[in-house]
């Protein structure tokens, strides 16, 4: 944004996040319930564990499954996004018009609330995850400083990829009434190809070959793969290159859709 210094922007974000945290604490029970609804990976873990009783599946032992799904759960918490529903609602009920009156692109309001939620979730879940990792036998990660840094980076990418794609889909509400249904369909693919139903390695070969390059992997599976130490340096390099590519692409698409959408929004004057 021209004319606004980075420092001003930071100050705005801090204020918005502060307000977001206030709201979250006010709606705390609802927010915690929301967190709990992300527990689906645990069911998948239970099923894989029952199968792994008779020996490892592929290269995954029972302990590997626990390690995998513990992080899958954590990632799902830390990358949770619902902006498509917010946008759909705001566009259709005219609340976006009010937000457009603020001297700040509305996306910052949406994002800052999501970031506040992430702070809330981080504080609540991180100790639990660490505790489980320490207490449950068989859980092991490739813990070294570099991996940790890469994990944090890849998680941030996962969050932003999920955010920006959902944001774009949500913007489609400018034109269609079923934008969130489209998001549901994308979600089905994500569950399959992002590593929730099964670690990508356990998918049929042909599917896995494609899934390795699709954005869904970088919304979930990739950071876990890093922490499980299953990636060679080449894999890492290719992985992060793909991350950068997908990120840039979706980011540009979202800007394009936002501009077009806004134009048609003001045209019919909702």
């Amino acid at each position, binding site marked *: 944004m021209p004319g606004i210094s980075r420092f001003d922007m930071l100050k705005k974000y801090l204020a918005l996040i502060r307000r977001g945290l206030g709201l979250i604490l006010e709606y705390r*029970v609802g927010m915690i319930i929301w967190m709990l609804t992300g527990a689906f990976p645990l069911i998948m873990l239970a*099923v894989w564990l029952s199968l792994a009783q008779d020996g490892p599946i592929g290269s995954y032992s029972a302990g590997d499954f626990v390690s995998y799904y513990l992080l899958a759960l954590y990632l799902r918490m830390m990358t949770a996004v619902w902006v498509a529903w917010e946008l759909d609602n705001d566009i259709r009920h005219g609340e976006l018009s009010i937000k457009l009156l603020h001297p700040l692109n509305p996306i910052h309001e949406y994002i800052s609330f999501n970031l506040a939620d992430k702070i809330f979730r981080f504080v609540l879940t991180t100790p639990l995850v660490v505790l489980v990792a320490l207490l449950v036998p068989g859980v092991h990660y490739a813990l070294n400083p570099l991996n940790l840094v890469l994990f944090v980076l890849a998680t941030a990418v996962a969050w932003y990829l999920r955010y920006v794609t959902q944001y774009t889909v949500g913007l489609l509400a400018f034109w269609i009434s079923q934008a969130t249904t489209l998001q549901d369909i994308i979600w089905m693919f994500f569950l399959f190809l992002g590593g929730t139903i099964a670690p990508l390695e356990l998918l049929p070969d042909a599917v896995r070959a494609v899934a390795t390059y699709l954005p869904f992997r970088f919304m979930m599976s990739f950071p876990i793969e890093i922490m499980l130490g299953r990636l060679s340096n080449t894999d890492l390099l290719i992985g992060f290159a793909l991350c950068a590519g997908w990120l840039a692409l979706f980011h540009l698409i979202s800007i394009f859709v936002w501009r077009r959408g806004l134009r048609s929004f003001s045209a019919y004057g909702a």
Partner: protein
Amino acid sequence: MRYFNLLGIFYRFSFLKELEYRVNFLTNVVMSFFWMAWGILSATIFFQHRATVGDWTYNEVLMVIGLFSLFTGVIEAFFRPNVSNIIEQIRDGTFDFVLIKPVNAQFLASLRLIVVWRLFDIFAGLAIIVYALKQLSLVPTLAQVFTFAAMLALGAVMVYSLWLVMVTLAFWFIKIDNLAELFGVVYDAGRFPISVYRGWLRALLTFVIPIAFITTIPAAVLLGRLENVDLAWGVTLAALLFLISNRFWNFAIRNYSSASS
């Protein structure tokens, strides 16, 4: 009898309401179909690596998936619309119009609306069950079919009771519109036979939130795997849950009337 009559009038009313939103018809049917395909596809992943899941073969698991879809239909068609409606009514104060009617408030509040299109899930679920039976070359006896129907009814009562408890919580936690979603997480466990889960989780899913009675046990009936204990326990549990949920509801209404303004 009067209440059956009322149900007829309520359902006619909500059907007319649904007709106002025609796009919903297509979306609902398409999404039901997608989710079902998704459920079957994800189950096949597990069978790529093992011949059985929790001692159930692929076609047997298919029966469970069929029942899962059937009950999804029951929940989405009959229960969810009312839950959302009640929560909204409590929030904006129009719940008073429910309480002031000379009809049992629980009946009026919890069974008034229906989303007709979601009945599709029920038929689709039945179709999967029939297909799976064919694949297994099983022809259930008349007794099995009757027991199966009885188990479905029990399952419906159990699910109804659980949903009622969740709605009732809304009297205290008005801001929780996602409470019902919590049920969805546990309900997802019903995609697989209960024998997949172990220890306390299986106990929880059998006795407390009896997902086992909704998908695994009715499937077991048709597969000839049911023990008599299951049926007796099912009846007891359904009655117990219904009683508890009804008591809780009445308690909430009394509290609503004495604690609000």
